[in-house]
């Protein structure tokens, strides 16, 4: 891990994440993709296996994931929401994103920042169905002419069995 970023950069990173959390809470994924995501994005949410600490079986050769999206995958997911055909989100559900534990370090390349952050997402839909999801993110941000953009995001959710019927929302 590189050195801590400057105060100025740290505050830019925080502003970036608070804006992102607001767009997520507004479910304005299009603006998020346009303004905050780099074309090279890998948006990744792997699953894990509950094994004994000293287990000797080889790791899975093709470990599964819930998200392994590139830019066009994310774009198509958002298009699917924009069709206005998805009855699952009509009436619209409610969602609130909180972001915390933000750490930011100089990245490996010039203009890159590596970050850790945690999130709490409260989603409420269909009268009274509510789930609270806590997780972490490891990002690589790159600094371009129009500000920061996400080039890599790995999401970890500390649940082996996901206690929600779908995770079709950005986090």
């Amino acid at each position: 891990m590189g050195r801590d970023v400057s105060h100025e950069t740290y505050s830019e990173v925080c502003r970036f994440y608070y804006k992102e959390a607001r767009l997520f809470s507004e479910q304005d994924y299009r603006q998020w993709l346009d303004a905050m995501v780099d074309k090279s994005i890998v948006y990744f949410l792997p699953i894990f296996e509950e094994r004994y600490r000293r287990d000797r079986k080889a790791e899975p050769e093709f470990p599964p994931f819930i998200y392994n999206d590139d830019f066009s995958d994310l774009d198509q997911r958002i298009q699917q929401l924009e069709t206005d055909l998805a009855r699952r989100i009509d009436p619209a559900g409610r969602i609130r994103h909180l972001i915390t534990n933000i750490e930011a370090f100089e990245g490996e390349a010039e203009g890159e920042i590596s970050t850790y952050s945690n999130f709490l997402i409260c989603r409420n839909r269909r009268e009274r169905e509510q789930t609270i999801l806590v997780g972490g993110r490891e990002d690589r941000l790159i600094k371009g002419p129009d500000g920061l953009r996400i080039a890599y995001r790995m999401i970890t959710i500390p649940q082996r069995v996901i206690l929600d019927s779908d995770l079709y929302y950005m986090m």
Partner: protein
Amino acid sequence: MGIDLSDLVDTGGSSQKKRIHVDEELYKLELERIFARSWLFLTHESQIPNPGDYFSTYMGEDAVIVARGSDGEIRAFINSCTHRGAKVCSAEAGNTRAFVCPYHGWTFGTDGALRGVPVDKAGWGADLDKSKLGLTPVAKVESYAGFVFGCFDKDAVSLKEYLGDLTWYMDSFTARGGVELLGPPVKSVIHCNWKVPSENFLDGYHVGWTHRPALSVLGGPMSQIAGNVDLPPDGGVIASTKYGHGVGVIYDAAPGLHRAPDYYMWLMQNRPQVETLLGEPQARLYGSHIASTIFPNCSFLHGTNIWKVWMPRGPREIEVWTWTMVEKDMPADLKRKIQKEAMRGFATAGTFESDDADNFQSVTEAARGTVTRRGALNATLAQQYDTRSDVLPGLVSEFIISEAGVRGFYSAYKDTLEAEDWADIKRRRADRG
């Protein structure tokens, strides 16, 4: 309050009371009479290739361990110590020489036998007969095309006979180079009755409507069925088999939902080999999209490369476990691409699965109402097409937008619930073969 089964499901399976999705008492009966008697999917041989490899799963609500012993044999046992009942294995998979109970340290081999107990001679003298205290075995464990199934009822028919006509459809994609599952499974909770997703994978009717959002942005030939604007261009067939399994085939539509041209090339390239091996009708299936439910709670999609189990967790909850299914001899790079497409459509953030899950919950939630649950569910669609075919095994509907598979499922459901034992199940299902 008894359960009048004859009132719950009609003989042909075309009508059921909504109560079947919420009733506690009925759920207990399902666990006894369906889950404790039917063949249930455990794992695929490719997931436990070596001696000592094991996988923890459930049969109904019973926790079981499936293990490959040092002799290479695959066995399954109930994951509960024969001493004071704790689970002897808390990991979902791994490789081991023994399962050691965390409570008092009783140690069982990968063949389920009790190997040792702490304070053995000092505490019991010569009185502890270890040979009688092995983990309770699952009565039958058999494989078909590498898919390992277990059955708690020793009187059940063999797995091959249980799968019956379904094997003809499965062979189309398993017989050539074999298939494997890419694990571990993705797992999530859906608040629905287990039968709702099981019947859903036999339901060609919902695809155009529920999946309109996903299909309309996907492009390609399958997008024509978005909103039921068109029927699948090359038609299809629904078949149901003796013990309640069914398939829905959309002809020439693999890989319908994947943006994976190399997978299409792969299927085209290998189709002649399937034809040589099995003949033209099954070779055509190899290039088609096949959705299936293996009664009671295991579903798969060939062409979309998905294998699922809907684990019952009470009448109104399931865990869904999802694997990617690929052909063994595919290049690693193609397996990876297919896994990405399969997970994108049918894992927990699936572009298809998310819309399905919402419906599953809606059906279950609505049936909570006292008066609602007295009402009937209707599965009469396209009954006039139900027939027999010279080529295709099973009860067949050559109209893909049919509820023939749903009817077959509930007809077997009713018979399995009502039957006294396996001899009775066989008798009741004799004319369905």
